[in-house]
């Protein structure tokens, strides 16, 4: 029955629908963007209306928000965290810094382009993005999930070597478990 095209479609639909309406964001403020997360999550903007809520550990989370710049030291942790998350998982790049370095493009300690190291599903523009922008970022992610295009994790798997090479290039002391998805 599962092989049946139609039922597969229905299953996919339900899966995507539930994934879309239940987005658990990993509580990891990697950068200064973390300051707009509390307002987004709390009463004034209340992201929980859209099914967005925080998750304490990577095992439970669906979305990794990279809130702004990433230092090399944090990147190492972020990769580890990302690899601990369970499929399907998404990455939201938050603010200018994730796109092209932002203010810190010439800093020796921050990466400039996030999608070289992690697959990013949605970018939110701004420095810092307002809660509205964050919410519309979630909306975009929901759209992407509903259309079944949010396949960052799959891409990561497929291009793991490329990602690894980039990651290892800037993280000198690579001690990390192998990625087993």
């Amino acid at each position, binding site marked *: 029955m599962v092989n049946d095209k139609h039922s597969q479609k229905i299953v996919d639909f339900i899966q995507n629908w539930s994934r879309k309406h239940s987005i658990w964001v990993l509580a990891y403020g990697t950068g200064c963007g973390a300051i707009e997360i509390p307002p987004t999550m709390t009463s004034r903007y209340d992201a929980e209306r859209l099914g967005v809520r925080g998750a304490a550990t990577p095992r439970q989370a669906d979305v990794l928000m990279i809130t702004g710049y990433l230092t*090399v*030291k944090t990147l*190492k942790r972020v990769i580890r965290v990302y690899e601990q998350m369970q499929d399907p998982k998404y990455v939201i790049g938050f603010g200018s810094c994730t*796109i*092209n*370095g932002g203010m810190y*493009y*010439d*800093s*020796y*300690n*921050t*990466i*400039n*382009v996030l999608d*070289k190291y992690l697959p990013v599903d949605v970018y939110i523009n701004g420095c810092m993005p307002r809660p509205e922008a964050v919410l519309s970022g979630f909306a975009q992610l929901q759209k992407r999930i509903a259309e079944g295009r949010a396949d960052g994790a799959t891409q990561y798997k497929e291009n793991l070597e490329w990602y690894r090479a*980039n990651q290892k*290039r*800037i*993280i*000198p*002391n690579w001690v990390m478990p192998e990625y087993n998805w």
Partner: protein
Amino acid sequence: MKELKENIIQRLKTNFADAVAGSEFSYNRVDVHVKKETIPSILFYLKEEMGYVHLSHISCVDWLEEGEFELVFIVWSPVDKVKVFVKTRLDRENPVLENIDMIWRQANTYEREFREMFGIQFTGLVAPDEFILEDWQGPPPFRRDFDTAEYAKKTFWNRPGREDAQDVRETISGRDGEEIPDFAKKYSR
């Protein structure tokens, strides 16, 4: 206020032979330059004898051209309401200073930072090697001879798509045939 400030300088001068008063300021600030050997004793004296109980800040300035590091200790007395800037210079090639974290415990953090960022050694400092950086292989990054932009360009990738940018000055001079001599170019923006 003026009297008070002169008094402070006088007291420090009588107790520490190498203390030299720095430039004068209209607001509540006194500058004292000392040799690096005197730093622990003068700070201790300021704290214990003169009531400068609060270490407000320690800063380090790299005077690359002069081959020296300048360390600035800013202490504050809630009684006098005066900031005393104790300044000393270290040789850039061999920057060593005595640890002062037994006078103020928070100096420990500053010293860790300077050790990492400027490569200044503090004799007797007990703290883990790494503070902010992790597996850093370059020179101490806050030294002025370390070029962060170049390092970033070399290490991190920039998103392509911006190569068509043009320089306004070059565009105009290309259009009207102006030839800017090389010695003038450094004054272009």
